[in-house]
């Protein structure tokens, strides 16, 4: 049965009339794993399957204590009820728990070489599935974890994903999340990370498919010199709705955080982005930056952006920037002088913008699949069902008409 819950809470809320403080999801979560799932773990890694409640209790014993906000823009904490914070938040955690989603606890110790986890989920039309994992990455271990979700292009269903990672001292995690679901899917993707001294996480995230997509990421940089580096690419057209909430909490000394978001919106797509850098007391010498670049291709899109910096430490450097708009007239003119018309130039720029993120996916097959997906959405000449593709890119770029 469908239930409604709130996700992606802004840590410091603002005017309610903007409808940006959180997102509301109406969907039914399932406790089933995807029917078709390929999971590959490195040698030496151990896996235990726990109930959600057991996993949270275990996490509380294993992960460093996270401080709840003492103060949120003058209010008592409005929202932070989780012991181990994630981007989508406590209501999603509760919904997964209520749905009976099992959690795979994966222990990864140090090894001489980088270790790789691959989780590839192929969903069928009408399937509702969940996948929850906790990665405990031991001291100085180096891990790459890849999660790819896909389905037929016009398939519908629900996929609820949850990945939490505890990075011990000096550990390194390269996490890639690639969402290539069909046009009728509701996709939820929730990440929570804690990084001890010298630990670092790199996140590459691509949100390309689904009808409704909710993304949340919360790295907590607890140890000295912990770091978080992320690159996200998204592409939404048709009637797609995308809600993104990144909340980087910097608590350790000399921590580093760099987040970039590159997106393209066409047709009647709607997107909300909340990106927060939160410097807590004790984070002296830390740096945090975020940048969002959004390319708008239709006058019917809705783009809402909230780049937030919260700061209670003097000795920090924080910055954020956003550029939102259409293609630069000068770029179009230059390309026109080279015989490339506006429609083709637009496709080139979309491919270039998202391709730069896709190239960082640490798996060749996944990289190609993401690039093919972008090509299909951008250019229906290469789409296998060009004649009736519901996501055909708008040739005129700004009228909302289908090609």
């Amino acid at each position, binding site marked *: 049965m469908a239930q409604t819950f709130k996700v992606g809470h802004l840590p410091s809320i603002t005017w*309610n009339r*903007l409808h940006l*403080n959180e997102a509301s999801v109406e969907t039914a979560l399932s406790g089933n794993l995807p029917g078709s799932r390929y999971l590959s773990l490195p040698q030496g890694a151990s896996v235990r399957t726990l109930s959600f409640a057991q996993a949270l209790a275990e996490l509380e014993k294993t992960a460093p204590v996270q401080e709840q906000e003492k103060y949120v823009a*003058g209010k008592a904490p409005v929202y932070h009820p989780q012991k181990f914070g994630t981007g989508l938040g406590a209501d999603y955690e509760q919904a997964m728990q209520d749905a009976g989603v099992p959690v795979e606890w994966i222990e990864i110790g140090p090894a001489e070489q980088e270790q790789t986890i691959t989780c590839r989920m192929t969903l069928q039309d009408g399937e509702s599935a969940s996948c929850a994992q906790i990665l405990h990455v031991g001291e100085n271990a180096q891990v790459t974890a890849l999660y790819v979700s896909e389905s037929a292009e016009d398939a519908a269903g629900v996929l609820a994903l949850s990945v939490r990672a505890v990075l011990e001292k000096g550990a390194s995690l390269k996490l890639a999340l690639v969402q290539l679901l069909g046009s009728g899917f509701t996709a939820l993707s929730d990440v929570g990370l804690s990084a001890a001294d010298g630990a670092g996480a790199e996140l590459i995230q691509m949100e390309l498919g689904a009808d409704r997509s909710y993304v949340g990421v919360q790295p907590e940089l607890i140890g000295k010199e912990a770091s978080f580096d992320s690159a996200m690419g998204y592409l939404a057209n048709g009637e797609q709705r995308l809600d993104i909430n990144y909340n980087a909490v910097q608590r350790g000394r000399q921590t580093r955080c760099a987040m970039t978001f590159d997106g393209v919106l066409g047709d009647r797509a709607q997107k909300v982005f909340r990106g927060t850098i939160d410097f807590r007391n004790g984070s*002296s010498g830390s740096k945090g930056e975020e940048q969002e670049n959004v390319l708008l291709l239709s*006058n019917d899109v809705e783009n809402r952006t909230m780049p937030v*910096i919260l*700061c209670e430490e003097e*000795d920090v450097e924080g910055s954020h*920037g956003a550029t939102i708009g259409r293609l630069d007239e000068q770029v179009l003119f230059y390309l026109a002088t080279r015989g490339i018309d506006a429609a083709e130039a637009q496709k080139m720029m979309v491919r270039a913008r998202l391709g730069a993120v896709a190239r960082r996916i640490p798996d060749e097959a996944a990289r190609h699949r993401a690039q093919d997906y972008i090509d299909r959405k951008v250019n229906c000449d290469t789409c296998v069902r060009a004649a009736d593709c519901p996501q055909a890119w708008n040739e005129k770029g700004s009228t909302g008409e289908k090609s």
Partner: protein
Amino acid sequence: MANTQDIADVDRSLYDFRDDESDFYRLDEGLTEEIVSRISDEKHDPDWMREFRLKSLRLYEQIPVPNWGPPVDGLDMDHIATYVRANTGMKGTWEEVPDDIKNTFEKLGIPQAERESLAGVGAQYDSELVYHNVRQEVADQGVVYTDLESALTGEYAEMVREHFMKLVPPTDHKFAALHGAVWSGGSFVYVPKGVTVEIPLQSYFRLNARGAGQFEHTLIIVDEGADLHFIEGCSAPKYNVANLHAGCVELYVGRNARLRYSTIENWSKNMYNLNTKRALVEEGATMEWVSGSFGSHTSYLYPTTILKGDNSHCEFTGITFAGAGQNLDTGARMVHLGKNTSSYINSKSISKSGGISTYRSSIEVAKTASGAKSSVSCGSLMLDSESRSDTIPAMDIRTADADIGHEAKIGRIGDDAVFYLMSRGISEEEARAMIVSGFANPVSKELPLEYAAEMNNLIRLEMEGM
């Protein structure tokens, strides 16, 4: 490693004096229908205004306190007197103003400023204006500058009724509803078509009474092709109980007109400053806000500009300095409706000694606003780790034909910059003060000289003892 800084609190003796209010007329504390009706009686409101007040009171009772922003728990409306009047009417010359009130404004330098650099002055003391005057040559141009109560029943009654609380309706938020119920005092300005007022007009608001509220309403209409600079100043002595300022400013900028609205806000640090300011800008017109927020215990202040006309433009330049015990939530809101509209926000904030400064804004570009351009730049300076500085901007863009840029930076005074200045023979204290003044320079350079000097003086006082 970062140096810690020991910074003294501002010397507020210039503003922190009180007058005896024993013979003042003061309504009971609290907010009831009876009190609102008595304010209406006091002011001889026309019937529509009496109904408007009562309707606003009902809205106030229904609308919740904001769930975002600084806490207002210390504000108990049952202990706020919404109407306090000195035993004097409004005067046209300073000589007629009672000595104690005149002395107050003399200490604040208002009569001197009027003589030297202003086209007209309105001085409000608690709930009522005590002085209003405009230079003859400005009046001869057809410029109207009067108290709002007179305008409500005089020649411009219909114009006032047409515009009063239409930009900021009482339904807007709880404190707009409060204002609609108990407003008192404030100014009405009308600048006729094509008239340029060469030197600024100024209103100065002084809240002397303990545990009282000030709810003045400023209504300015700048007609087609006209040009005006209006300055607003405010201060109050400090009490150990909460005072409240919930004023409202409504600005109408006609086609191809220009209005600059400058404010140096220096309320005492027991003040809840819950002020609402909004401008409607027609085709080809320009609105400029210059805003300095230094005082108050708690502030909610976000001047809003509705760029309704094609090719209209707005600039907002603001600085906020939050010291010990202060929680100042300030910023701006731009709403782009017309084609080829443009806006620019340049905001600076400084936090020290446990002060909390929040920059909050929104840029809203409607589907109709093709060709819109907006650029936001905000910088925050943290002077110690007891303080807090938050930046909470929003952008809501609904057309592809727009160019929106936003950048924000937060940080501390760089050791390199201090070292460089010290290597040139400047003391560390002076070097830090110079850097902060430089940081605030984009705002101070937009102010008339006297006000820029006042602002720099405030910053210097805040930075003493570093």
